Structure formats: structure tokens, C-alpha cells
């Protein structure tokens, strides 16, 4: 009983933050369109950086972007750009901002965004190298 009441207090403390995070991601989902994502994923070295950044800034679950990524892959978008987009998209999302800052502070979130960007680039670069020996 004590655990349940403590859990409920802990849950209620975070509930407004969670609500804000979900609302923010729903707004972003409406205002960031598939067309703009397509526009930013290019087949070049700079594309890896841009696709990571676009991935980081896109809201919602990866599930929603998988169909368009399949189309882009078929149309010849580099696997490195797809890899870095997926990495950036999964690692950070606008909905996490409020929640993560409230738990671990702005510095931790800022560092996580920087590292997510670097990790996305490294993953994209690794895909670029692996693509020379493995057909994706």
C-alpha cells in the first residue's frame, strides 16, 4: 500500500510534464511534414549530418517514418543518410526535452543532443563504409 501511494505521488508529480511532452510532440507531428524530411535527406557526405539533425528534430515514433524511408531507399537515397536519420530519430525527440530536463537537468540533455548528433554521424559514416562490401 505504501509503495502504491508513493508510486502514485511520484506519478502525479511527473504527469503534467508528461502531458506537456505528449502535447508538444503532437503539435510538432502536425507541423513537420514528410515533404520537408524528404527534402533534407540527400545522397552526399553532408547529407549524413543533415539527416542526423533532421532525425533528431522529428517527433513521434520511428514507426511512422519507416514506410517513407523504404520509399527513399528504393529511390536511391544513400543508406548512410537513412542510417543516420534512424539513429538521430530514435536517440532524441522533441517530446523528450521537457521530461529529460526535469529529471536530469539541461546540461545532461544538451550533452545527450550533442552526442546523439555525433553518434548519428558515426553510424552514417559506418554505413557508408560497410556499403562498399555489403549490399543493403
Amino acid at each position, binding site marked *: 500500500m505504501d509503495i502504491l501511494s508513493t508510486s502514485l505521488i511520484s506519478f502525479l508529480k*511527473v504527469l503534467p510534464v508528461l502531458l506537456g511532452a*505528449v502535447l508538444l510532440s503532437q503539435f510538432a*507531428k502536425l507541423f513537420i511534414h514528410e515533404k520537408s524530411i524528404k527534402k533534407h535527406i540527400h545522397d552526399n557526405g553532408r547529407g549524413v549530418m543533415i539527416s542526423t539533425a533532421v532525425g533528431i528534430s522529428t517527433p513521434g515514433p*520511428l514507426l511512422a517514418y519507416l514506410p517513407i524511408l523504404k520509399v527513399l531507399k528504393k529511390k536511391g537515397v544513400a543508406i548512410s543518410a537513412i542510417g543516420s536519420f534512424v539513429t538521430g530519430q*530514435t*536517440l532524441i525527440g522533441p517530446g*523528450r526535452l521537457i521530461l529529460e530536463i526535469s*529529471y*536530469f537537468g539541461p546540461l545532461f540533455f544538451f550533452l545527450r543532443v550533442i552526442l546523439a548528433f555525433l553518434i548519428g554521424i558515426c553510424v552514417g559514416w559506418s*554505413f557508408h563504409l560497410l556499403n562498399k562490401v555489403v549490399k543493403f
Partner: protein
Amino acid sequence: MKKNILQKVMKGTLKELKFLLPIFFAASVVGVLIEQYLPASTFDLVIGKNIFWAIPAAVMIGIVFPIPRYATYPIAFALFVKGVGYGIIFALISGEVIGESIVRDVIELKYLGWRFFVARFAFSIVFITLGGYAIEWIL
């Protein structure tokens, strides 16, 4: 128009909350259980001492445990309160998000192929681990 946008946002929010709230509450219970019943020394033994092994282990725990979106935070915070370092928190959260759910993994496999799926996981594990070491060193 504005009414239509608000309706869409509210509908989407309610749908998301309907899925998230029970899971988030369950995660809060797990967080409280960890906070109350697991002594700090347990974490010293498991992940507190050797950061070199603890960070990749945290990435793997994040991937393997079926924790849904946002629900890692109460658990990670409970670990943080127990004295677990930022590098492990980073590794746990990042590990959780790269392998979010079995449903998503299956769909990713279907859409982008098994080679892409395996390579993405392998690269992510390596670079998140390195990121964990970096954040542990910085903070």
C-alpha cells in the same frame, strides 16, 4: 482551421496518453521499488565500480528490457538517486530508445531489411558505449 488543429492535437494526445499512462504508472512503481528496496551497495556491485563494463552493460539492459517510450526516466532517475553515474544513465536511456519495442523492430526489419537492422544495432551499441564513456568523463 485552428479548431481543427486543436481537435487533431487533442485526439492524438488522448490516444498517446491512453497507451502511455498505464505503462508510465507501472514504470513509476518499478522506480519506487528500486528506490526503496534495492540497497545502494547492489548497484556498487553490479554497475557502480567498473565503468568500463557497466556502460556497455547498461546499453544492453536498455535494449533487452521491453521499456516503452518515456518510461525509462523514472527507473533511470531512481538509479541516479542511488548514485549511478551519468554515463550509465546515458547508456541506459540511449539503449532503450534504439530498441524501443519488438513491434517496431519487426516492422523495421520488414521495411529496411535484416542487414540494415543488424548493422544499425551493432553500430549504435558501439557508439553509444563510447558516448557513455565521454559523458562520464565530462560530468
